[in-house]
C-alpha cells in the first residue's frame, strides 16, 4: 500500500506574545518540532505499511528548515519525502495550503491513503485535511480512533463524532485524520539516522518545479482569508486584583465564595 502522511513543523513553544505598547510580537525561542498530533498519523501510517507490505512517504510545506521535521519522519520509517518550500507558498491560509499539498501529493505519485493529524498545535484549525481531500476529489473521514481493517480496496475505521463512535468502511483512495492518542508513536531510529542520506531522500520543490501549479491558488495570493490586524487579547474590565498574605487572601476567597453562595 502506498501511504502518504502530511506533517507540519510547528514552534516548539507556545510562548509568542504581543507587546501591548509597541504591538510587536515577542518570540521566546525559535525551536521547532513536528506537530505532536502528526506523530499519531505517522505511527498509524507505519503500522499500516507493515501490515500491508507498503511504504510511507511524507509531505510538508514550510520554510527550508522544515526539512528537519521531514528528516525525523525518515528516521522513524518513511521511505522518501517532499518539502514544498517557496516564498510563493508563504502566507497561505487553509485554502491555499490545501492547494499546495494537493500539488505535493501529485509529486509523490500513486497513493492509496493519505493520513493527517487531527489538527496542528499552532493553528488548531483541523481544516487542512478535509480541504485537501476535497481538492483531490477523494472521500475523507476525520477523528479516526482506530484502523480496524484494510483490504480489497476498502479501509474500515472507527471515528469519533462527539456523541457517537462511527464504524465506517471507506473506499480507497481516501484521506483520514487521526485522533490524538490513537496509538503510541514510535521514536526515530538511531540506526536509520546513522545510515540514511536524508538530503537524497527529501526532494524540495519550489513553485517553478511544479508545472501545473497555478500561482493564483497558492500562498497569500490564493488565500481568501486575510489577517486584517493582530492584537493582544482584551482585558476583562472591572477586575479586582488583591495582594497580601496567604491568610488574608484565603479569607478573601472564602468570603467571595460565601457571599456568592458557592459554599
Amino acid at each position, binding site marked *: 500500500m502506498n501511504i502518504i502522511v502530511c506533517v507540519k513543523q510547528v*514552534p516548539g513553544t507556545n510562548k*509568542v*506574545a*504581543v507587546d501591548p505598547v509597541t*504591538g*510587536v*510580537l*515577542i518570540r521566546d525561542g*525559535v525551536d521547532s518540532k513536528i506537530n505532536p498530533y502528526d506523530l499519531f498519523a505517522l505511527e498509524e501510517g507505519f503500522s499500516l505499511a507493515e501490515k500491508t507490505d507498503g511504504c510511507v512517504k511524507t509531505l510538508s510545506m*514550510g*520554510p*527550508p528548515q522544515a526539512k528537519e521535521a521531514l528528516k525525523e519522519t525518515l528516521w522513524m520509517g518513511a521511505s522518501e519525502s517532499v518539502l514544498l518550500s517557496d*516564498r510563493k507558498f*508563504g502566507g497561505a491560509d*487553509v*485554502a491555499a495550503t490545501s492547494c499546495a499539498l494537493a500539488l505535493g501529493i501529485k509529486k509523490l505519485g500513486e497513493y492509496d491513503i493519505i493520513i493527517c493529524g487531527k489538527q496542528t*498545535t*499552532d*493553528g488548531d484549525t*483541523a*481544516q*487542512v485535511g478535509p*480541504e485537501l481531500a*476535497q481538492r483531490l476529489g477523494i*472521500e*475523507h*473521514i*476525520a*477523528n479516526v480512533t482506530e484502523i480496524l481493517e484494510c483490504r480489497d480496496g476498502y479501509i474500515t475505521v472507527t471515528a*469519533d463524532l462527539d*456523541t*457517537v463512535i*462511527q*464504524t*465506517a468502511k471507506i473506499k480507497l483512495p*481516501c484521506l483520514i485524520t487521526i485522533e490524538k492518542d490513537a496509538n503510541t508513536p514510535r521514536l526515530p531510529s538511531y540506526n536509520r539516522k546513522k545510515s540514511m542520506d536524508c538530503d537524497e531522500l527529501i526532494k524540495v520543490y519550489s513553485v517553478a518545479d511544479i508545472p501545473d501549479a497555478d500561482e493564483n491558488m497558492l*500562498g*497569500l*495570493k490564493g*488565500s*481568501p*482569508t*486575510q489577517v*486584517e*490586524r*493582530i492584537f493582544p*487579547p482584551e482585558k*476583562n474590565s472591572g477586575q479586582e*486584583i488583591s*495582594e497580601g498574605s*496567604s*491568610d488574608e*487572601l*484565603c479569607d478573601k*476567597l*472564602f468570603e*467571595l465564595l*460565601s457571599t456568592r453562595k*458557592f*459554599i
Partner: protein
Amino acid sequence: MGLIINNEKMTPENAQKLIDICPFGALEYQGGKLSVNAACKSCKLCVKKGPAGIVSWQDETAKTVDKSQWNGVCVFCEIVDGKIHPVTLELLGKARELADVIGHKVYGVVIGDNIKEKASELLHYGADKIFVYDDKAFSQFTITPYSEAFYDFIEKIKPSSILVGATNLGRSLAPRVAARCGAGLTADCTILKMKENTDLVQIRPAFGGNIMAQIVTPNARPQFCTVRYKIFSAPERTDAAYGELVMMDITDAMKKSGTEIICSKEKPKEIDISEADIVVACGRGFQKESDLAMAKELAELLGAQLAGTRPLVEAGWISPKRQIGLSGRTVKPKLIICLGISGSVQFAAGMKGSDYIIAVNNNRDASIFDVAHVGLVGNLYEIVPALIEKIKGGKA
C-alpha cells in the same frame, strides 16, 4: 501581492532589526540581501514596525466578487440522533445579531433523515427560513452526501456568511464545503462582527500564542467560519414559531457515498467539564502530580469538576477530557477558579465566557489576571489548603 523588500537600502543592522521583529523566522539575510521564506504569515509587522522604507506591502488588484449577489447569514444546524446540538441555537442567536446589522435574513440549513419535525423546532429561535434536506441518504453522517446537500444549498440560496458549530462533524464538513466553493474558512472564532459592506469580521486566537487575529474575507463569498460550543449564548425559545420551513429537492449526487457506516454506537457518558456549573482548573503552578490532590479536594467540596491546562494534560497528570482551551473543551460555568494558570490565549479562549472567574497565581504579571474578575496574587500551596480547612470548618 506580498512583501516587497528594498535591498538597496539594506544594511546588516537593518536586516537584524527586521529579523528580530519577525515572529515567524520568515526573514533571511544572505549576501547583503534580505529575503522572505515560506514561513511568512503576512502579519506585516516588518512593514509597520521595521526601519522605514525598507519593507513595503503591495496589494495586487484582487479578485473581486459582487457582494450584493450574496445575501443572508446562514447557520448549519447540526442534528445528530434526533438531537439538536445546542451550539446550533447559540449560532442562530449570533446570526440574528449579525444579520440585523446589514438587514439580511437568517437562514438555517438542516440535513438529516425524517427530520422535518426537529427542523421546525428551530423556528422558535428566530430564523427567517430553515432549508431542509430530508432523505434516508442522510440518516448517518457521511461526508459526500452531506457536503453535496450543503453545496446545493449554497449554490441555490447564495448566503453571504455561513456559521458552523466546531463539533467533530462541523469541523469535517465545513472545510470540505468551503474548499469546494473556493471560499475562505476561519476556525474556532471567538468573536464575530459584521461590517456594513457584509464582510464578516472573524476574530480568533492565532499563531499558537497570546495573540488575537482579526480575519476578513474581502474578495470571496460565501464567508465560512466555525465556532465552538459555549462561546455564544443561546437565545430564549419563543413560544410562537417564526419564519418558514423550505423543503429542498434531493438529487442523485446526494445519495452516493464512498463511505458505508457499519454501526454507530453512542459513546459512554463521560465526564463533561463543559456542562459543569463550577470548575476548578489547574495549571503549571502545580509542581508535581500528587499536589493536584488539594485541587481535587477543593473541587469535591465545591461540587466542582476538576480541569486543567494543556501542559498538565501533556504531562499525563490530567485526562485530555478535562482540558480547557482551544485544543480541549470550552467551559462556561457560573464559577471557575484558576489555580496556578498563567492564562495563555489558548486557555482563555476556552473559559472567558464564564460568569465569574477567580484566579490565584503568584505572578502579578500573569495574563490570567487580565481575564479574571478577581485575581489573588499569592501562593496556591498556602491558600488552597487553608481554604479547604476553612470550608470544612464552616460546614462542620
